[in-house]
């Protein structure tokens, strides 16, 4: 495995006259928890959406394991090994928890109409394997007992966990979490933190966008700070915390 898992070079993105991202470069190393912070509107989620193929970028490139990543559609990004969750949870609400996770396995398996209709032995075996894997993942994130509840009937914290389980089902090498702690209470945040650390210990690389600076500083190995679409710092939490530009971005310029 290379020393760099994901490298973004000079990513740019415009929305009409607004330069949402300008020459953003960053490197994420294997098996690290990489935090992305910044004030509201700094471009964190935009960068995320570019990484996961939801928005076309206007410049720059992304390398995954040294190879250029095709950002053409969400479907190819998922196949390359990047999975994500959403700031505003986007589950399939009218499907059960286990079905949500089973959908995530789609990218790693081939399911055809005719296989499904004919219901061959191979098809049944694969379906059983998918169901087992989905059960394991629900167990892993700690909501195995809610497997057959509809996603919309789960508590908020459980929905976040389900979204993570669904993302994990795609067998990602990089898991991108968009504000997973948003709206969580203190207990849920502690549990989430343990879950993210567990993911890393199990070999996954995590990209974390978070508003909760305390959570980011405590959890991440390295942190990048975005402001007005530009990266103003990238380093270990202690160094970033002491960076005058970062303090200025968060607290304003009154000190000067």
């Amino acid at each position, binding site marked *: 495995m290379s020393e760099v898992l994901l490298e973004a070079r000079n990513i740019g993105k415009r929305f009409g006259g607004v330069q949402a991202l300008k020459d953003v470069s960053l490197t994420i190393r294997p098996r690290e928890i990489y935090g992305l912070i910044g004030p509201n509107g700094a471009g964190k989620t935009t960068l995320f959406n570019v990484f996961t193929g939801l928005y076309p970028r206007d410049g720059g490139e992304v390398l995954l394991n040294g190879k250029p990543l095709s950002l053409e*559609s969400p479907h190819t990004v*998922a*196949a390359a090994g990047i*999975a994500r969750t959403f700031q505003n949870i986007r589950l*399939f*609400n*009218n*499907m059960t928890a286990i079905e949500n996770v*089973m959908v995530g396995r789609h*990218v790693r398996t081939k399911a055809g109409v005719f296989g499904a209709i004919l219901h061959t032995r191979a098809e049944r075996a694969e379906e059983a394997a998918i169901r087992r894997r989905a059960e394991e993942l629900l167990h892993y994130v700690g909501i195995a007992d809610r497997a057959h509840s509809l996603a919309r009937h789960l508590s908020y914290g459980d929905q976040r966990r389900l979204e993570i389980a669904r993302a994990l089902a795609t067998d990602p090498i990089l898991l991108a979490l968009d504000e997973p702690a948003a709206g969580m209470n203190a207990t849920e945040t502690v549990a989430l933190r343990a879950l993210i650390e567990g993911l890393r210990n199990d070999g996954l690389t995590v990209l974390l966008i978070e508003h909760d600076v305390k959570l980011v500083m405590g959890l991440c190995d390295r942190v990048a700070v975005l402001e007005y679409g530009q990266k103003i710092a990238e380093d270990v939490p202690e160094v970033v915390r002491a960076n005058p530009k970062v303090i200025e971005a968060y607290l304003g310029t009154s000190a000067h």
Partner: protein
Amino acid sequence: MDILLQQIINGLTTGSVYAVVALGYTMVYGVIQLINFAHGEVVMIGAMVAFTIITALAGTAMPPTFIVLAGVLAAIPVCMGIGYSLERIAYRPLRHAPRLAPLITAIGMSIILQHIALLIWGRNPLAFPQIIDNPSFNIGGAAISGVQIAIIMLSLLMMGGLSWFVYRTRFGIAIRATAENVHVAGLMGINADRVIAATFVIGAGLGAVAGVMFGTYYGIAHYTMGFTLGLKAFSAAVLGGIGNLPGAMVGGILLGLVEALGSGYIGDLTNLCHWPGATSWMGERCANGADFVVFGSNYQDVFAFLMLILVLVFRPSGLLGERVSERA
């Protein structure tokens, strides 16, 4: 003869055909929020193709059931091909266009298919050849024919099969995921184009069988039959809650029942000579047991659309429909 039971049997028969056709509308709507107005024409072409095959084989020594089956088996792939082509040629290029554009295209495709059928089969109705003897059974004073039994059973079988496919298989999960959120489904590796094409193909396949059943029941197939049938099935889908599979099934059967009961009783109910005190104000016109019927059973079609209007006014999301889902 028991009119109530008889009309219930007739209503179940047409209703189950409506239900199967309605599934085609509702599946496509569920996935891409498009009313595929050409679906009725696909159903019509299914009937035409099957009738052509059945007529061609009618003179041979083959067993009648085999001949009908051959007709159905020929109609299914033809309709599936048309369903697939419709999606590829007419709707996919407009996937990201404003919603009015594919809707107008749908109406255009409907007209085109109707006229292709006119060119191929001409303007005279095709008659179903008299090859099967249609036994009639008596239950509780009403008659049910072999064809009616076959239609109801086959429809139930198709509805059950589709439900199993959508709710129990992996591809079905992919269809439901795409219907809920096409972008997130894409992130899970679901190829939306394939899922959308599949819904058109499956809907068209069901429609083909429905077309043959409908044509066999009434004994004729005609190039304009898809219009009213499609409109009624669409009403049934809206009645049940468009985009909702169980809704289309319930809506179709309910529509068939309302239509049959309505046309069965409207003549009696609007026979002014049977109204209390009729002799005083109808006078001579009711003398000697004469009838004065305001609305006859030819008002059958009114009920389907009357019901559609009532649903749209009082419960726009349909009987089983949820509130319009929030889309990201």
